[in-house]
């Protein structure tokens, strides 16, 4: 089962914790909001991705299981 990152842009306030913890897949735009790599998270980065999800103060970031 693959996993992808998904942000709820309404909940996201641009704290930026996710980009610090997972710079390989999350960059910040010029206003501080996350630009997320929508491809499946490589196995080597799953642990960091979980940390990024947990670190979001707004619980706006999720890891979704995808079937493909």
């Amino acid at each position: 089962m693959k996993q992808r990152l998904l942000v709820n842009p309404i909940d996201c306030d641009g704290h930026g914790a996710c980009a610090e913890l997972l710079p390989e897949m999350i960059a910040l735009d010029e206003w501080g909001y996350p630009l997320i790599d929508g491809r499946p998270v490589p196995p080597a980065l799953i642990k960091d991705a979980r940390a990024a999800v947990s670190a979001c103060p707004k619980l706006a970031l999720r890891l979704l299981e995808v079937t493909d």
Partner: protein
Amino acid sequence: MTPAVTTDVPRLLPRDGERIQNWRAHSAKFGRIPYRNAAGSLINDIEASGLTGRGGAAFPTYRKLAAVLEASVRKRVRPTVIANGAESEPASEKDATLLWLAPHLVLDGLQLAAEAVGAESAVLYTHAHRAGDVGARLREAIADRFDDHVAVRLAIAPPRFLAGQETALISHLDGGPAIPRFPFPRVTEQGLDGDPTLVQNAETLAHLALIARFGPGWFREIGTRREPGSFLATVRRADGRPRIMELPLGTPVPEVIGGLGQVTALLIGGYHGTWVPVARAAKLRLDNESLSSVGASVGAGILAALPGDRCGLVESARILRYLALESAGQCGPCLNGLPRMSAALTALARGRAPRGTRADLERWAGLVTGRGACHHPDGTARFVASALRTFAAELDRHGRGQCGATNAAPFLPVPQSAARTEEDWL
């Protein structure tokens, strides 16, 4: 309300002089409501017909019906069906016109869709600025019907651009502001009161009511093989007057917009749509297969010609300002990007833009795309990018302090009121 209506395809709209807005005349023309006496039986016919949503997204109608039926059976709850007549594009008048001239066709479709998904309640959602004329007629129409299986409630949308967006509509009917929410879970799964909900554009339901009567083969007699049937268009030619036309999908653009000689560009799909130079537009047909070649789509059927005496940049800047003000301001990229984009295009149109403004605007258009809970930033970015492409020569002229327009009067309609407080979204 006295809409200018043209139809060579009298399916949804009455022919000249014909009046079918009252129940008796409607029943005399169309007969009884063709109930199937079984949930789900109509869905196969709708699938065979190839009907897609006429509110803008062109999503296959049967898939929404099937999703709501499946979710409600699984959750053991009765869904709600909603007819969405709150066309919020200021340049569109097709749903209001349909509800005005043929309200019972939409209400028949609402009853039949309710039966198809096993719904026990129904809502007809219309726009506030139509509450006086269209709203009054709908109230009367609902009271006149006698073969309805499901009670229909009339609801009025606030006069905001996003009020007709599917999740905004649910939020409003649930007692909150008419602003979009995160699209997951889907409304078909968790909509009104948290139960599965079917939201269909008013015109889509009118087509559904006709397919239920005459069958999918009849529906496919016009239109293209891939995109069958007809659609309602709001057409503004160079004279600026809106005309509501019922057209087969695939109709060539020059057949719809006469007098292309006095026109510089066409706006296809409304304020979330695409500007196309007139030479290119003249070769297009009004179906998504053809329009996708220029990054456009039929959308909600809005087609507007820009007369040669107007400036496309000035028009676009005015519309973009409106779109930026109509952002619900919930998502960071939209909240930050749209006002900056608006300021940049206004500066370019005034010929007072610092170096790099155009590059900023193009970058921001890319940056906001796909990053909102709804498609407002995407549609706005598409509109802006197409304006920069289509009016490139005008952009250079404005950079030198000149403008090709000889008529400074605003052309396309833009509402004056902007939301100032949260109350304005209720």
